[in-house]
């Protein structure tokens, strides 16, 4: 055991008080992973226990099966077998028969469990920097590394035995004994801190009187610096040593978020205190637990940083929203998850609207909508409220997915993110229907019911008010608003998929009618049919008019009467939707038509994608005069298809307009670059945006020199950052970046002067490097000559010079979050990829090492993943995969797999030398047993496997042995079932018939059949083991009883841990020495 290893150890003791609500309580099942359980007692009697974790290895006995369908079902079965919501668990404790009588009388049972946790791979994360000094000096710390998703359900069983379900509430008493230099931050109120007798350790005593589920409990231990919030003294912030100034600045804003939520919800923050802890190597950026939130330390920033500020504030707001909905009120079951994610996401949106303005809010909603639409159309629908009627495969509500959505920890991470995104969008749809006022009343009602319930002592049936189900939520909505939102729920919650509209129109001059045609595509994957109202806004010469149309089964065409006659000659101001009246130059429009522009579903009250056809001038009018940022953004993306001088003018005007929302202007930059490239042969004047940039940001006297930086105006700061990046995308007739533009960017870098600036320019400089990267075009290579310094292109030499200098300077004066290194690494990869410098992974490998800042590592890994794909290098792929297995940082491991999925070295449809049996086996093994400590990682591995090999047996594998026999007879018949091409959605269904159909004929298939049986075995794992116990309850009744016990049992959960930091406790002697000491101290 190395010295380092001694530190990663937890010794703990759990005491559960159980109030039986049913008779026949003879077994207690708890969730526990990784823990070594020494001893279990029930009311002072030794109790026999059984510990088995079926998820450690998903598919047993060296199966040769390698298809993902098989794995998914086996994995789902394994997870179900320990699902606490169904009354299962890894740890089965048999209540000693002496106590059965007591249990039958519904008397209190106390369960005591002693356990230890030795170098946990998941759940708790230890960060111990490898430098000399005491633990405190080194900034060592530990925290519960539970992400939002895992938090819901899973990872608590990784560090202490509990009922790892959101629906099992109990009150808590927590004690943590840590080194005297450390602070242990956990949920609830810190009652007191007491030294141990040797004065070298101290014990933190916490009490959480509000009933809380185990997954909402967390812990962070470290040499934290403590900051009491100056505005709210019951709020305490913790950060790692030396970061206190950053913490002060970053947290100076938190009280406003508190005020906002408390005001809109008309409800006090439910817990008596709140703690924020900033830790290194966080599992996710933000995770919320009862009365505390754990953040990534990388969210901290100084007053000089612009870009990080809104991001950090958003994270704080998210965390706080989850305190109300997610921690205080938690979900009844996994199927109700969407309500909590939806509400917290929705109120977070309200906060965004208030703080960052309506434009930012609408922009964000559009972004989220675009994201979910894109995901669903690509990957298939996202189902918010799955119902599982039976346990059969056929009832799988999402057959298009390669994983099961039955359990949170079988979900792909990306799917879960999209799930949250959809949930809050649906909440917004509900708001559209019932009004915000009612919406907030509903929330207030839920919260006040919950807080009344929480103050009730020992009346666990009352506590169910603190759990929210879909049903209760909908009932509350109908009570408060009196409106029926059933169809809306049915459409978006009970069904997956989005709506895809195609719209076009014609103007009938005779009837003065707009003939609108709206078609739908509801057959392709991820779509659904929409029937119901839709709003169409028509801007005419006489004003803007809203029309509610009804989308019905068969009618595609809608006639909309126009209000104004075409009359372009009369000079008159044109009224807009917001009441404003503007002068317009109407010369561009069609003389016969009074229509300026048309918008379908302008309020985004349907989860949809709209492809609408209207003339280019209409888009241009929409861009210039429509005041809604969403409309402007839609117009910009539509204008990409119309590279005309008029489009150019419209975009340039928007760019210059300071009243216009800055993100629209930023988007206009990129569109303008695209249009300029399409118009390259007819383009007049200097390169696009150059004169504009000069006018806005360069000195009056010497237009080639940029002004010294002053970023006090954030809008122009963002524009100044974006324009060079977009300009670098310009290409001349030879498809090269114009010399003018490159020199211009090089000058910007040269004359960049930040001495007089109040803010850091690190993001700006990083963007200038990105601009250099964008200017690169593929090198002209003759006969694949080797790239050397001598044959370097002159322009590239200049670029390389800058990049070298930037990268080197970063070593001496590092920038915030090392943004410049990140940009440089991307630039170098781009240079390699374009053949300007030799393609070489070694630089990236060194930057990807543990010990660099995480953003830098990710950028280097991204380059390596790209290298692996382009060069088809199996060495690098192996290097990456070994990092996935061995890297100390969970986030990096997760990210590597994510990057590999996004940029796969090969896919199921392409052939590659990389695709071989060894790789299949390696990945399979990793999914099967290697990633058992981290749900997220396992699901990532499943995703990658799917990406590389698809759902069926990978084609690179040799045929199963006996298949060859038949191969001689009839080639096709044998090959089909095994190397069947991907069938997409239908694949899963088609396998089973083929299995059954061929079962009798081929011995090959027997293999698979046996495996399928083991799946059922593991599903029935608990039942199976229960038979070993002495007093089997009636089999039919059994599950019922236990579910019952779990949902109506009241616990008082007492958790005590001792974080061992000096000596490893030997399991054998630990039994007698360490633990009783801990127990002895308290008088419960």
């Amino acid at each position, binding site marked *: 055991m190395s010295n380092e290893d001694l530190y990663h150890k937890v010794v703990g003791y759990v005491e559960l008080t159980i109030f039986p609500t049913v008779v026949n309580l003879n077994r207690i099942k708890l969730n526990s992973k990784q823990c070594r359980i020494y001893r279990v007692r029930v009311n002072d009697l030794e109790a026999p226990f059984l510990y088995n974790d079926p998820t450690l290895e998903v598919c047993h006995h060296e199966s040769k099966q390698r298809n993902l369908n098989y794995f998914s079902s086996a994995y789902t079965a394994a997870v179900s077998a320990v699902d606490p919501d169904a009354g299962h668990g890894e740890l089965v404790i048999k209540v000693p028969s002496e106590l059965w009588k007591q249990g039958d009388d519904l008397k209190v049972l106390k369960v005591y469990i002693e356990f230890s946790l030795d170098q946990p791979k998941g759940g708790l994360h230890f960060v111990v920097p490898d430098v000399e000094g005491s633990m405190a000096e080194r900034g060592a710390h530990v925290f519960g590394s539970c992400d939002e998703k895992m938090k819901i359900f899973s990872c608590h069983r990784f560090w202490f035995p509990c009922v790892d379900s959101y629906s099992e509430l109990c009150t808590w008493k927590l004690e943590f004994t840590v080194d005297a230099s450390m602070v242990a931050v956990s949920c609830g109120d810190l009652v007191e801190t007491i030294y141990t*007798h040797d004065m070298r350790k101290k014990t933190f005593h916490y009490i959480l009187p509000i009933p809380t589920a185990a997954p909402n409990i967390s812990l962070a231990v470290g040499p934290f610096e403590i900051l*009491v919030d100056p505005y709210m003294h019951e709020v305490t912030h913790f950060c790692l040593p030396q970061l206190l100034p*950053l913490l002060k600045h970053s947290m100076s804003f938190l009280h406003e978020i508190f005020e906002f939520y408390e005001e809109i919800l008309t409800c006090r923050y439910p817990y008596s205190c709140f703690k924020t802890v900033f830790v290194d190597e966080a599992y996710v950026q933000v995770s919320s637990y009862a009365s505390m939130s754990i953040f990534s330390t990388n969210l901290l920033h100084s007053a000089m940083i612009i870009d990080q500020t809104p991001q950090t504030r958003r994270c704080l707001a998210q965390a706080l929203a989850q305190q109300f909905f997610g921690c205080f009120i938690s979900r009844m079951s996994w199927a109700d998850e969407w309500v909590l994610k939806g509400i917290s996401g929705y109120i977070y949106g309200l906060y965004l609207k208030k703080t960052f303005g309506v434009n930012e809010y609408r922009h964000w909603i559009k972004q989220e909508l675009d994201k979910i639409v894109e995901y669903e159309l690509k990957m298939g629908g996202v189902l918010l409220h799955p119902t599982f009627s039976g346990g059969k495969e056929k009832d799988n509500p999402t057959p298009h997915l390669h994983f099961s959505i039955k359990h949170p920890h079988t979900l792909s991470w990306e799917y879960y993110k999209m799930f949250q995104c959809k949930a809050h969008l649906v909440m917004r749809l509900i708001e559209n229907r019932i009004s915000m006022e009612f919406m907030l009343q509903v929330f207030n009602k839920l919260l006040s019911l919950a807080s009344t319930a929480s103050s009730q002592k020992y009346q666990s049936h009352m506590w169910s008010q603190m759990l929210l189900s879909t049903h209760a939520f909908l009932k509350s909505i109908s009570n408060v608003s009196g409106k029926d939102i059933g169809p809306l729920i049915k459409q978006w919650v009970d069904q997956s998929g989005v709506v895809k509209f195609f719209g076009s129109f014609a103007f009938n001059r005779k009837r003065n009618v707009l003939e609108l045609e709206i078609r739908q595509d509801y057959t392709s994957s991820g779509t659904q049919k929409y029937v119901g109202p839709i709003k169409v806004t028509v801007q005419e010469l006489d004003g803007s008019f809203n029309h509610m149309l009804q989308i019905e089964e068969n009618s595609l065409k809608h006639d909309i009467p126009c209000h104004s006659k075409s009359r372009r000659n009369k000079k008159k101001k044109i009224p807009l939707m917001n009441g404003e009246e503007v002068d317009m130059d109407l010369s561009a429009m069609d003389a016969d038509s009074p229509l300026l522009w048309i918008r379908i579903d302008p309020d985004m009250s349907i989860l949809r994608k709209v492809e609408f056809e209207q003339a280019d001038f209409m888009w241009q009018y929409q861009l210039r005069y429509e005041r809604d940022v969403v409309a402007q953004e839609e117009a910009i993306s539509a204008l990409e298809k119309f590279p005309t001088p008029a489009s150019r003018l419209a975009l340039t005007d928007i760019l210059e307009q300071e009243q216009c929302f800055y993100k629209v202007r930023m988007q206009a930059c990129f569109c303008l670059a695209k249009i300029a490239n399409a118009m390259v042969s007819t383009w007049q004047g200097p390169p696009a945006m150059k004169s504009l940039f000069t006018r806005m940001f360069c000195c009056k006297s010497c237009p080639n020199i940029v002004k010294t930086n002053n970023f006090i105006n954030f809008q122009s700061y963002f524009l100044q950052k974006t324009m060079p990046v977009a300009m670098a995308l310009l290409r001349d007739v030879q498809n090269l970046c114009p010399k003018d533009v490159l020199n211009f960017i090089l000058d910007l870098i040269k004359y960049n002067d930040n001495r007089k600036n109040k803010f850091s320019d690190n993001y700006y400089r990083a963007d200038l490097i990105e601009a250099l990267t964008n200017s690169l075009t593929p090198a002209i290579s003759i006969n694949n000559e080797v790239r*050397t310094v001598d044959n370097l292109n002159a322009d590239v030499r200049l670029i390389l*010079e800058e990049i070298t*200098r930037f990268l080197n300077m970063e070593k001496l004066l590092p920038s915030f979050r090392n943004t410049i290194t990140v940009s440089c690494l991307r630039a170098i990869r781009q240079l390699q990829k374009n053949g300007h410098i030799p393609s070489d992974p*070694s630089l990236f490998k060194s*930057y990807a*090492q543990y*010990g660099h800042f995480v953003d830098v590592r990710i950028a280097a890994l991204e380059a390596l993943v790209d290298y692996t794909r382009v060069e088809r290098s199996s060495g690098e792929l192996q290097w990456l995969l070994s990092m996935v297995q061995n890297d100390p940082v969970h986030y990096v491991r997760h990210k590597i797999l994510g990057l590999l999925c996004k940029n796969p070295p090969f896919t199921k449809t392409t052939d590659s030398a990389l695709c071989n049996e060894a790789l299949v086996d390696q990945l399979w093994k990793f999914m099967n047993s290697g990633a058992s400590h981290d749900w997220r990682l396992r699901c990532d591995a499943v995703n990658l496997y799917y990406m590389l090999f698809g759902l069926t047996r990978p084609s690179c594998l040799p045929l199963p042995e006996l298949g060859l026999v038949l191969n001689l007879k009839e080639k096709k018949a044998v090959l089909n079932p095994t190397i069947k091409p991907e069938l997409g959605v239908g694949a899963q269904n088609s396998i089973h018939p083929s299995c059954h159909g061929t079962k009798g004929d081929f011995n090959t298939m027997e293999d698979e059949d046996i495996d399928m049986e083991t799946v059922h075995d593991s599903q029935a794992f608990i039942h199976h083991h229960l038979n070993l116990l002495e007093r089997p309850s009636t089999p039919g009744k059994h599950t019922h009883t236990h579910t019952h016990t779990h949902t109506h049992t009241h616990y008082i959960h007492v958790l005590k841990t001792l974080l061992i930091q000096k000596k490893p406790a030997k399991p054998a002697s630990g039994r007698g020495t360490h633990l009783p000491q801990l127990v002895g101290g308290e008088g419960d």
Partner: protein
Amino acid sequence: VFSVHMVGEGSVSICSIAGKATSSPAENYLLARRRTLQVVVSALLTESGFESAEKAAVETLTEMLQSYITEIGRCAKAYCEHTARSVPTLSDTVVTLIEMGFNVDTLPIYAKRSQRMVITAPPVTNAPVTPKALSAGQKRTHPAHIPSHFPEFPDPHTYIKTPTFREPVSDYQVVREKAATQRRDVERALTRFIAKTGETQSLFKDDITTFPLIAARPSTIPYLSALLPSELELQALEETDSSEQDDQTDGENTDDPGADKENSMLPPSGVVPSTKASEDNVIDNPYLRPVKKPKVRRKK
């Protein structure tokens, strides 16, 4: 005696010998004197019975003689200046000789010795005219209250401020250009130096010097350097804060000063000082409370 003659000139002559150019009249004058000294040395040698001497030996003796005479001159001048005179007298010289351990009484006997060789007088060369110091501008005449026997005013340039530097370049473009170039040069030189003295990485396998990259070195606590602003940035911030804060206070930052004020009331460690207890809002935060001592158990 010639010793008096040499006073004041000795040090100058050494310098001129060291120098090589011998064309100016002043130099010729000095060279002649040196030659005389050489003759003196040669005569003394002959007197002592030497028939020939190496040139180097003669030269060394000349040097010794010269420095001896120079020392006498310097010392005598010091004595004379000590008594607020400007021209040394015989007594100054005598005191000097005594000071240097020379028995003055023996001098007349030595001077009158019989075998004394007579040296021809050195050729008369005009003492070089010291060129007039470059006079710049008109010398000021004495104002009425200063008697005329007081020394004249020195040249105006010695007491009048005469700016000699050029007008600084105020052209904005040139300044920016210069600042940019300078910064770039400094950065390049510095990074190249570091790259040369430490480990490097290279983008080209065949050429590791053209674009040297300082090797990436993992750090034990990478987030510290990535998150904390560098000293340079902090310094720059302070400068802008003090100098430009006034014109940079915009409406959007109105709440920040308030926040700062609130923060500044807290000590850096977040621990509440006891003085604050006087105010009604005493911070009662469980994390700030002292750690309790363990209870002593009764059992012994």
